[in-house]
């Protein structure tokens, strides 16, 4: 018993230890859970315009995702930067996760950054909100920021200071720096108002230049071709760039190398002043909006053709101008030609010198008649930016001679038919009329054919004969019957005597002796005495042999007798 009691105590103690461990773990987890929270904080609540500040969202909850709030009133110039750390100090666990952003205000005023969310499987936690007061002229710069103030800046360069509406010009975006930089990025692209934009290709290459006696590095990072659509001054949001500028700290590291740090810097580039002049008034009626230095031409592939040849007419606008809005005027369809839908050709290049190239319509004309025809004159007006005036280009009439084909149409007022073409080719005329002595009428004789075919088919059906059953001649019948008898005797068929008898009897019937009248007298009248007896004997023996074969002679006798009789019967 004492041994058993000891054992029991040992087990109870062991269970107790496990229970304590479980309670400790549960308690720790509960305590840990109770500390869950999500906090939003910022580096400063009052900032100057274009001054950077940092917003951080932190939580001590494991798992889940931090969803930042919308920050539309600010430019995100850095981030999101994420970090998390776990600490165990004297058995106590601590965990922290952070997401932070580097922001720059867009405008003055009081702005609220809404709560961030911590979304987990169990629940969703909200952070506190932040209120930021943005004031102009309150930029606090630390010593490092002040130090790099002039070491990084941006400019927008324009190819023209004054343009007419519709006249293309180029904008070049350039960043300058005097100290090494990294993470150069566009925070905000300028948003030009009232212009058409075309992106130009650009080879981004860092270059060096001396400005005010200082070596400066620069990079052209964007290039656009703009075409103003309304008069005024070019406006829009400024360009904003961000970069990290390398700044020496003044300290040295273990290897006695100078230590550096990087300072975030956001700089703005103002949109240059470009005056967009309106086109002079009044505008000519034939002006369709083309602006630039342009040419307008019309070329014919040939001026003299045969009737079965075609002519190609090209109408082309070429030069430098607003090709993105120019439409080539259509050809006025000339008389005497079939005009096919034009083919459109275009080659336009966008470059620093503007928009250059051509637009072309290519028509195919096929002459209908012989004679001389006129391709009508064409007028086209554009605004010449070089002279500052409207310029009308007149394309004179072109004459085309069609060497062969029918003559051109004539008005035939007398016949009362207008717009008809008279065909009169003397050299190679159409043939003369045919005499209509007997006019052909459509006769539906197919019904007659069907009726006749039906009648013939019916007649075939009632013929009652099998094809191939031609009446046999006397000789053929005798030959056939002889073969039947010989075959029956050769094969020793049971009814061979009957067959022989029937064939002889049938033969007698065929020559006119009735079956009932077969007797010696009758046979003698037909064949003679000896032959009749021979035939009579053969018939009688056949009848006897049918009932008692072998008693009246052997088969050889029957065959010999049959062959003998068959010769004369």
């Amino acid at each position: 018993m004492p041994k058993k009691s000891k054992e029991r105590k040992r087990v109870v103690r062991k269970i107790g230890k496990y229970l304590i461990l479980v309670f400790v773990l549960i308690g720790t987890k509960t305590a840990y859970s109770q500390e869950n929270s999500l906090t939003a904080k910022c580096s400063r609540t009052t900032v100057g315009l274009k001054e950077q500040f940092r917003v951080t969202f932190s939580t001590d909850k494991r798992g889940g995702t931090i969803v930042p709030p919308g920050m539309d009133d600010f430019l995100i110039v850095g981030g999101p930067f994420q970090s998390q750390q776990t600490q165990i100090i004297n058995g106590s666990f601590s965990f922290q996760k952070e997401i932070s952003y580097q922001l720059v205000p867009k405008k003055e005023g009081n702005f609220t950054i809404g709560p961030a969310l911590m979304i987990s499987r169990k629940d969703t936690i909200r952070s506190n909100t932040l209120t930021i007061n943005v004031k102009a002229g309150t930029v606090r710069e630390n010593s490092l920021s002040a130090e790099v103030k002039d070491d990084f800046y941006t400019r927008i360069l324009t190819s023209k200071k004054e343009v007419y509406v519709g006249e293309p010009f180029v904008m070049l975006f350039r960043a300058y720096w005097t100290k090494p930089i990294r993470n150069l990025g566009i925070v905000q692209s300028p948003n030009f108002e009232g212009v058409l934009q075309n992106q130009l290709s650009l080879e981004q290459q860092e270059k060096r230049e001396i400005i005010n006696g200082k070596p400066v590095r620069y990079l052209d990072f964007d290039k656009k071709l703009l075409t103003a659509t309304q008069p005024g001054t070019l406006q829009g949001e400024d360009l904003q760039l961000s970069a990290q500028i390398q700044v020496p700290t003044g300290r040295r590291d273990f290897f006695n190398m100078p230590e550096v740090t990087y300072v975030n810097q956001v700089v703005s580039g103002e949109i240059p002043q470009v005056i967009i002049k309106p086109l002079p008034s009044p505008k000519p009626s034939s002006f369709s909006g083309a602006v630039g230095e342009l040419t307008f031409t019309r070329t014919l592939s040939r001026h003299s053709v045969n009737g079965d040849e075609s002519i190609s007419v090209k109408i082309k606008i070429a030069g430098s101008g607003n090709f993105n809005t120019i439409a080539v005027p259509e050809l006025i369809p000339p008389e005497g030609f079939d005009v096919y839908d034009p083919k459109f050709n275009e080659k336009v290049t966008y470059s620093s010198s503007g928009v250059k190239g051509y637009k072309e319509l290519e028509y195919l004309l096929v002459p209908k008649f012989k004679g001389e025809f006129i391709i009508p004159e064409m007028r086209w007006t554009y605004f010449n930016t070089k002279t500052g005036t409207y310029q009308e280009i007149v394309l004179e009439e072109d004459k085309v001679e069609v060497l062969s084909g029918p003559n051109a149409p004539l008005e035939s007022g007398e016949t009362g038919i207008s717009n008809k073409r008279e065909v009169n080719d003397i050299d190679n005329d159409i043939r003369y009329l045919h005499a209509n002595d007997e006019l052909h009428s459509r006769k539906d004789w197919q019904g007659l054919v069907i009726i006749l075919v039906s009648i013939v088919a019916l007649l075939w059906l009632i013929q009652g004969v099998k094809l191939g059953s031609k009446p046999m001649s006397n000789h053929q019948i005798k030959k056939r019957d002889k073969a039947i008898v010989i075959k029956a005797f050769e094969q020793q068929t049971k009814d061979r005597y009957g067959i022989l008898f029937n064939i002889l009897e049938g033969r007698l019937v065929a020559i006119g002796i009735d079956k009932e009248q077969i007797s010696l007298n009758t046979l003698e009248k037909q064949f003679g005495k000896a032959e009749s007896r021979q035939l009579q004997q053969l018939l009688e023996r056949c009848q006897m042999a049918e009932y008692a074969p072998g008693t009246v002679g052997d088969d050889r006798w029957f065959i010999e007798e049959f062959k003998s009789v068959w010769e004369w019967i």
Partner: protein
Amino acid sequence: MDLKSTVDSAQVLYDTGQYAEALKVYEDIATNHPTDADLAYNIGNCYARLGELGEARLYFERSALFDPSNADALHNLEWINLRLSDAVVEPTMTLLQWIGASLRGIAFSESWLGITVFFLVVSAILLTFRRWRTPKINWRWPLTTTMLSLVFAGIFWISIPKSDTVIVLAKSSYGYSEPTSDSKRILLLSEGSAARLRKSSEGWFFLELGDGRLAWFEAAQWGHVLPPESTLP
């Protein structure tokens, strides 16, 4: 006025250059004789004189269809085609149509029909005699005449003019992707161009050009070389 006088009057009008009046007379006659090759030829001539090359081609084609041996119609057709300088490939005849045209070149369809009827009648007589009057007639004779009649019936059927060719009668005709003018234009054919009719649908023809291109065209701008059944008397 009898038919002969009417035809003569049309010829007089034509000779005096009154092509439109001659055309009217010929077309009146043609309402009762739409399959007459010479009449179609004369109508084609009138249209050619009036410069209506699309209609002229249609009637010359029709004349050549009914009478492929009509050398004048073929000449005038060639004359028209020289003036219709469209680059469209001409539709080709099917083998059966070509054989039919060749047979019509030898003899008119009616002639083939006459031969067929002759042999059928002979077959019927032979079979009747063999059945009721003279059984000794060898069956091979009616069989031969019957077979011949069937062969000529086939020739007659092949020689019946058949054509699914249509001709542009308007100045030009646009080909559309669908049987509606709101669909995409994919072709433009000028007057006198020919194509083969594949199917029709509510005022639209689905046509195949000689080069295999297909498109929908407005039926009103086209004419059948073979007069449609509905227009026949």
